[in-house]
């Protein structure tokens, strides 16, 4: 269960950024960019799934997550915690344990045969659900998971991610329009600050990363990716 401590928000974000850097979950590659699912070319990539292999870090993360959820939303505002396939599932399990709530997981697509299930686990009609994923980029996957949950008669009121890109200005609004509030522990800006404070990468690399974070679509267009985000 939750340890009942409520660290300062800034301390949480800085600590999580340091954790992600410590386990080499952060990758910067301006010369050979990555292609995101949207087609956006990017010099940054983060692998939050690595966190599951570090018990002390993941335990602290879940305490941080519980503290943010309790503080921002309340102690009795959810009936269930649902994990989005695939990376959201372990984090949902640990967070459900911290919050003392039932857990489900949501597939990206129904299985397509048998009972054609998209949601596994018991979920009551009208249940208030906290949707969990490892990260949030533009919120697209969360909208699809929330739609699947809504088809059962339950509703996603909030979504939690360990990491939020915070480079697409309309993401919180898109989620809010679907009835979801977004909660997270750290963003690229927290990573960037720690990298600068601790001189973690060459200055030129950090400059390129900052250029991308301040104008992701323009950076993408100049590096072989899309020049416009799909609406």
């Amino acid at each position, binding site marked *: 269960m939750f340890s009942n401590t409520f660290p300062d928000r800034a301390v949480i974000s800085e600590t999580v950024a340091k954790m992600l850097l410590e386990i080499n979950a952060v990758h910067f590659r301006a010369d*050979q960019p990555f*292609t995101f699912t949207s*087609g956006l070319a990017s010099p940054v990539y983060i692998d939050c799934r690595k966190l599951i292999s570090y018990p002390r870090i993941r335990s602290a993360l879940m305490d941080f997550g519980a503290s943010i959820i309790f503080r921002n939303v309340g102690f009795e505002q959810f009936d269930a915690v649902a994990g989005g396939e695939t990376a959201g599932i372990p984090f949902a399990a640990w967070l459900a344990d911290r919050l003392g709530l039932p857990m489900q997981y949501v597939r990206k697509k129904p299985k397509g045969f048998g009972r054609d299930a998209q949601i596994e686990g018991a979920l009551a009609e009208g249940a208030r659900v906290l949707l969990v994923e490892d990260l949030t980029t533009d919120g697209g996957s969360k909208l699809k998971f929330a739609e699947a949950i809504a088809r059962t008669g339950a509703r996603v009121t909030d979504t939690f991610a360990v990491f939020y890109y915070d480079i697409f200005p309309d993401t919180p609004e898109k989620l809010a329009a679907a009835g979801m509030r977004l909660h997270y522990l750290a963003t690229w800006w927290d990573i960037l600050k720690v990298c600068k404070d601790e001189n973690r990468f060459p200055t030129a690399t950090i400059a390129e990363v900052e250029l991308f974070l301040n104008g992701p679509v323009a950076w993408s267009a100049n590096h072989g990716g899309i020049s416009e985000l799909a609406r």
Partner: protein
Amino acid sequence: MFDSLVKAISDAGGGVRAYDACARAARARIAKEPDNSAALLLISYAAQRFVESYDDQPLTVEEAAEEFNHITGMVTLLGNAFAGGSAEAKLDAMNEAARRLADTHRTDGSN
């Protein structure tokens, strides 16, 4: 004949979402184009393989370009055979496309 499917991938940035849309579009055409069903199913499988390989996984711009060349080659092969080719040419093209697809599965470890 099937060029619009790969053009849509390119226009949408060549990421996972673009291939997912391609796989769905190819499957949707099967009902309307029964004579092209086998070719469209192979194209759908090829696009879906990309989705399963790179969804939640890092994909570099170079890898994305290689993958796009791969599916473009396969679609061109099938398109040329199905646009007025003989039954034998269509069968040959499908066998070659299936072989390439199976080869890619072996290379990337997909099941």
